[in-house]
């Protein structure tokens, strides 16, 4: 009898614990999703209802008017700019990173350790240190208000090379030797043997790069001067500067346009994306 009560007690306790844990997870998840919900409903509200006292959650006046307003203000060209810059930067980075990753993973050349240490050390240099001199350099290159500063200086990411080196190291040498015997050049080995094998890794890393460039703010903010060259994050931030009031209703419409592609891409490639994030951290 005593045994039964004890076991039911434990069972009750664990059921209680399970419910508590799930309630905790649900409330945290709601807190995580809340800002997106708020973004969406604000983008549908007229300006005077955004920070109305008392608060208005839904109203009859909601509609897509803010979207037509930001379309008139040129949101599509900014979306195209953001996409173009993110795409070009990602492709270029993936090419240089996989190439260098192959070099570090599969060749034992003099100076390799020193060069690799330089690569790792370069990751410590924060943006703040290069921001000003690099900006002055871009002025002298006449690259201000072009997309080149967003694509070229970061084209070979140290993190990406490290990532690719770890990835390519697991490819057996025999595979490469076989290709060499067949008379393939080193570049052909990269193209025909390495690239097909590392495609999953390239997707993981590419998703991280794409997201980083898409969301980048400070550097595009100082580089892109004319409105028609802006990216979406810069457009969101500068929509406030023009009038004395903060135009949340318009900012939220642009924000929805800015985050929707990322969320769709993330939901499709979620496994590859989290694999990329954790590969860098846990292996590093």
């Amino acid at each position, binding site marked *: 009898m005593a045994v039964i009560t004890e076991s039911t007690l434990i069972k009750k306790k664990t059921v209680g614990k399970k419910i508590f*844990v799930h309630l905790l997870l649900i409330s945290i998840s709601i807190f*995580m999703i809340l800002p997106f919900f708020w973004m969406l409903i604000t983008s549908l509200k007229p300006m005077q209802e955004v920070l109305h006292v008392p608060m208005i959650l839904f109203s009859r006046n909601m509609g897509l008017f803010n979207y037509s307003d930001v379309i008139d203000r040129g949101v599509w060209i900014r979306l195209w700019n953001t996409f173009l810059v993110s795409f070009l930067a990602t492709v270029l980075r993936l090419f*240089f990173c996989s190439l260098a990753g192959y070099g570090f993973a599969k060749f034992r050349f003099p100076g390799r350790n020193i060069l690799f240490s330089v690569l790792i050390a370069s990751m410590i240099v924060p943006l*703040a240190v290069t921001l000003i001199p690099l900006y002055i350099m871009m002025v002298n290159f006449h690259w201000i208000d072009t997309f080149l500063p967003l694509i070229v200086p970061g084209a070979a990411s140290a993190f990406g090379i490290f990532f690719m080196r770890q990835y390519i190291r697991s490819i057996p040498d025999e595979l490469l030797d076989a290709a060499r015997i067949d008379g393939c050049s080193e570049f052909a080995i990269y193209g025909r043997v390495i690239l097909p094998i590392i495609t999953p890794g390239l997707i993981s890393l590419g998703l991280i790069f794409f997201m980083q460039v898409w969301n980048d703010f*400070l550097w595009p903010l100082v580089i892109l001067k004319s409105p028609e060259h802006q990216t979406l994050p810069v457009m969101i931030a500068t929509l406030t500067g023009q009038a004395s009031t903060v135009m*949340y209703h318009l900012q939220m419409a642009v924000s929805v346009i800015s985050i929707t592609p990322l969320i769709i891409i993330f939901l499709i490639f979620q496994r590859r994306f989290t694999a990329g994030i*954790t590969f860098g951290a*846990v292996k590093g």
Partner: protein
Amino acid sequence: MKRNWGEVKKNKWAYVFISPFYILFAIFNIFPIIFSIYLSFTKWKGTGPKVFVGLENYRRLIADPVFWQSIRNGFIIFFLYVPIMTLLALVLAVILNAKFVRFFRVFRTMLFIPYITTMVAVGYVFRMLLNAKGGLFNTVLTSIGLPAVPWMENIWWARVSISLLIIWAWLGYNMVIMLAGLQTIPKDLVESATIDGANQVQAFFHITVPLMRPIILFSVILSTIGSFGLFNEVYALTASGQLGGPMRATITPLVYIYQQAFRNFNFSYAASISYVYFAIILILALLQLRYFGRED
């Protein structure tokens, strides 16, 4: 030496493959860093000749209360969010790693989604939510009988607001990393400890935390660099009013560098700020490595 040269020749393709990084690194990192040292010893407003002034900028910097305020803010914000976020991420990872949790994928996705979204965009959402009048947070607080909070209007609450935004954005990222770390810990280790009579809290602090130390270190170092280099969060919450406000409570070193360079055009002074800032975070990262890295 001759043999070495032969090795170089044999591996010439490797040098070709890795060269893009070093070429770009030299042009866009090494050269600017050196140029920036020179710049920090001059007085230059963006146009005209650069006047050599020696250590003048550094002398000014040491006496500049705003600079020291920005460093202090970095520390304060770090302590406001890092312990809470790290512990919460670890606890959530342990919970999600438990077998009995249902909808594991759904929860993980929900927690992770803030990380992938545009910070400036959600920063402005938080600015609305935190608005003193008509904002959601205060509306909820007053409706359940609690006093309204002066979120972005009081120096301490402003820092709390920034921390809240950072925790929201980065909790899922840290949790996913810790989850991956947890999966490398053999499960029977924790199980055998609980059989030996340790309760789950004890098992957490005596087994999980020590084994997870490298991952925790990774996350804490990233957060250190992150809290001194905060920009997007501060910009979204405070720009078009007083950037870094109220009363400079949320100005970080990077925000100050931006202000000096791109609002006041004191490029040379901003360069000297960036050097002192770099030295400080380098020292902090090394201290943390020593502190956490001992006993290994």
